[in-house]
């Protein structure tokens, strides 16, 4: 039996000003531990949480306070999460209820509704730890080799650093010469001298990355060179293509790092250069004419990548569960759906197999699988339907239409968080009649979830995902559109207004797009209900 604990944060008054935190705490007496603290980011509170977890032997922890995004973005938050994991709580048994943004700030001045909404957000977070499969780890012995993709000055400096550590370094450049800014070439001469004379270094000009498989610590990469394909094995990758949009686009297609509006790489964490994959880092795109500044821009990322590879083993989380052979009929749907070639059918056993080396955990195959033979460990189907049911009963108790906002874990959630921030609130914020549901990707929007939301009483469903070219999972939007295209035709064939379902691609900072869409959907639904 799972022992779960709930910790509620007053967030130094920001939450407790609007949400009755202490009254909420009394409603969870059935959990092993329920405790209120002032902030999740203060050292004494963190110690108290960790002590409580150890004392009660908790294996699941729900943190009701600031958003998961806030935890990921700040070192104080990542420290608490890391400490909980070190204390033996599985990563998928830690969940977050964004009581601050979605209840306290969204319903400022309305304690009753804010507290009621906080309750459903907490119920959803508890459901998540109850339903999530514990994440399993793939053990990887890291290779002491790196790929430097591009020859911007930073890439060459990074290459020099890795050579100094004794790493094998593959430098791949699409063009026929160095990309480094001419102004920096002179200062780069000592580095270039080392790289050109070192046996550890291979330069490949006129070459591109054709295929990538594997995970942090052990990637198998196929390089298309003028002399034919070459396969290399590296532990990490440094993107150093400068600010060339076309090169970056091609590299993004292989390495799936985030991008901003201009197509430039976007940091996925507090440290500049972080991508969603801890083995892949990018260097600043704008190379300073100042050599010192360029060196400095390189060192942080290189330091992190280098340190992460200087270990005996790396644990890689498996986000898609094993295929359930008692259900899988080997139909091949997952094989046709996966954009990364991570699914295949084992003909001898007639069961689908997931290639952990290629799986990126996007969940597209989970959505496609007609038998439910696989599931996302962190967003299992049973959790999603349970969460939709809880939230349908917990939206603001006035006459405004109830809307479910499905957010992809990438841009959708980021833009939502900005809408919930102080700055976003100043620009109109997000309407209170909306319940947010985080999913992995647009590709994990199962049409059954949309139907379930309508059947449970939501009046409208709005899906917020990345722009096509920014989808980490390449085809998340494509498959979402294909599925919803058919789905809409089902609705229309029964004269059901398919305008109640909206899908919007947002940039990660575009809270305004979310705000506008929700406003427009609310108005349309209000008008439709007045007409009926």
């Amino acid at each position, binding site marked *: 039996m799972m022992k779960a604990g709930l910790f509620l944060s007053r967030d130094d008054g920001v939450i407790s000003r609007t949400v009755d935190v202490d009254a909420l705490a009394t409603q969870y007496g059935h959990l092993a531990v329920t405790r209120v603290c002032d902030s999740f980011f203060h050292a004494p509170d963190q110690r108290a949480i960790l002590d409580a977890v150890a004392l009660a032997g908790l294996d699941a922890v729900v943190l009701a306070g600031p958003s998961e995004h806030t935890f990921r973005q700040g070192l104080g938050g990542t420290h608490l999460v890391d400490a909980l994991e070190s204390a033996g709580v599985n990563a998928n048994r830690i969940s977050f209820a964004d009581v601050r943004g979605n209840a306290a700030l969204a319903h400022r001045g309305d304690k009753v509704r804010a507290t009621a909404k906080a309750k459903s957000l907490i119920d959803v977070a508890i459901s998540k730890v109850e339903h999530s499969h514990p994440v399993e780890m793939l053990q990887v012995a890291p290779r002491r080799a790196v790929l430097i993709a591009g020859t911007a000055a930073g890439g060459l400096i990074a290459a020099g650093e890795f050579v100094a550590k004794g790493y094998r370094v593959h430098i791949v450049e699409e063009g026929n010469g160095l990309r480094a800014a001419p102004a920096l070439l002179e200062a780069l001469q000592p580095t270039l001298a080392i790289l050109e004379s070192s046996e550890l270094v291979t330069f490949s000009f006129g070459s591109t990355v054709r295929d990538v498989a594997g995970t942090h610590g052990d990637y198998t990469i196929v390089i298309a060179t003028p002399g034919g394909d070459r396969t290399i094995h590296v532990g990490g990758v440094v993107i150093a293509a400068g600010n060339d949009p076309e090169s970056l686009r091609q590299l993004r297609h292989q390495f799936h790092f985030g991008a901003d509006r201009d197509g430039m790489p976007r940091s996925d964490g507090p440290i500049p250069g972080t991508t969603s994959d801890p083995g892949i880092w990018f260097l600043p795109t704008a190379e300073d004419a100042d050599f010192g500044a360029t060196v400095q821009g390189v060192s942080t990322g290189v330091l992190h990548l280098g340190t992460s590879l200087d270990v005996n083993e790396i644990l890689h989380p498996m986000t898609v569960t094993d295929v359930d052979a008692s259900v899988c009929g080997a139909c091949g749907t997952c094989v046709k759906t996966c954009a990364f070639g991570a699914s295949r059918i084992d003909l001898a056993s007639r069961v689908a197999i997931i290639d952990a080396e290629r799986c990126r955990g996007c969940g597209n195959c989970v959505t496609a699988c007609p038998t439910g033979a696989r599931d996302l460990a962190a967003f299992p189907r049973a959790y999603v339907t349970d969460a939709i049911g809880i939230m349908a009963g917990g939206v603001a108790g006035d006459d405004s239409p109830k809307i479910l906002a499905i957010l992809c874990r990438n841009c959708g959630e980021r833009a939502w968080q900005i809408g919930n921030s102080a700055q976003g609130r100043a620009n109109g914020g997000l309407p209170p009649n909306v319940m947010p549901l985080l999913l992995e990707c647009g590709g994990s929007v199962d049409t059954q979830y949309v139907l379930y939301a309508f059947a449970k009483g939501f009046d409208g469903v709005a899906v917020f995902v990345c722009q096509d070219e920014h989808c980490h999972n390449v085809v998340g939007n494509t498959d979402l559109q*294909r599925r919803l295209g058919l789905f809409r035709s089902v609705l229309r064939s029964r004269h059901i207004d398919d305008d109640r379902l909206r899908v919007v691609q947002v940039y990660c900072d575009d809270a305004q797009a979310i705000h506008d869409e929700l406003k427009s959907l609310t108005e349309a639904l209000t008008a439709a209900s007045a007409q009926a």
Partner: protein
Amino acid sequence: MRMAGKTTVATAWLQSCSGCHISLLDLHQELLDVLELIDITYSPVADVKKVPRATVGIIEGAVGNEENLELLHEFRRQCDLLIAFGTCAAFGGVTGLRNLVPLDEVLARGYVETESTVGGHVPAGPDIPRLLPDVKALHQVVKIDATIPGCPPLPSMIKATLVALLTGKTPPHHTHNLCHECTRKKDKMLVATRDFVVDAVMSPHELPFIDPEVCFLEQGVLCMGPATCEGCDTRCVQGNMPCRGCMGPPPSALEQGAKVINALSSILPAGGLMFHEDVVGTGYRYSVPVSLFPRLASTRSTS
């Protein structure tokens, strides 16, 4: 004729075509094996007025009118075990398609607007059971102990379930989709590329030849097999016709229609699916009453 030691069985048909009972008779001489074990005390072919106590109740058809409802409750009271017999009983089946249309429109279409009807009116009176607003599968009304799906169920499936129940064994329980027991060859379906397996979706009659050994989807024929539970021994597929889904959704699906959309979106060109085939009739032919989708119809806009 009642004999000691035999299990008493009562059967009935509700809103249905009687095809499931015909399938029971299709056991032919094997019916005699079954009759060794059972004594049928009530059935549509026996002139018995009241439902007697029985160990096993077998009900074909969905619950569509007040009389169906009354008889089903009577069976539940009188029988120890109740079996949902056939697709209508299990999922609502073809009779459940009327849930897609408001009841008054159904009656008007049936009794007034049909092209051959002159001066028609919707029949009503104390002797005529009124239709319920929605057709329901049996388990949506009473507790059901076992299900034999199929439109109609294969005689072999009927025998297997009955004999298992009567001899204290667990009846066959299926969890895979139809592809699991389908022996057609797959080629393009197993290639890990994102290309559709065909350029266009066709109806079986539009194709000059359908290879009986190759997966229907790979030949551009929409087959419900991936989103349909196994257990029918792929009888339609062996007759060179694609699966239409009468065995109902795989156990983990919330509903068959949405599930087939999720799956086929990356296999067949969506345009073909949308405009060529009747999507509602394809995904929901046998399972409307147990699906989520028709519940939306009541809230549809007036436009």
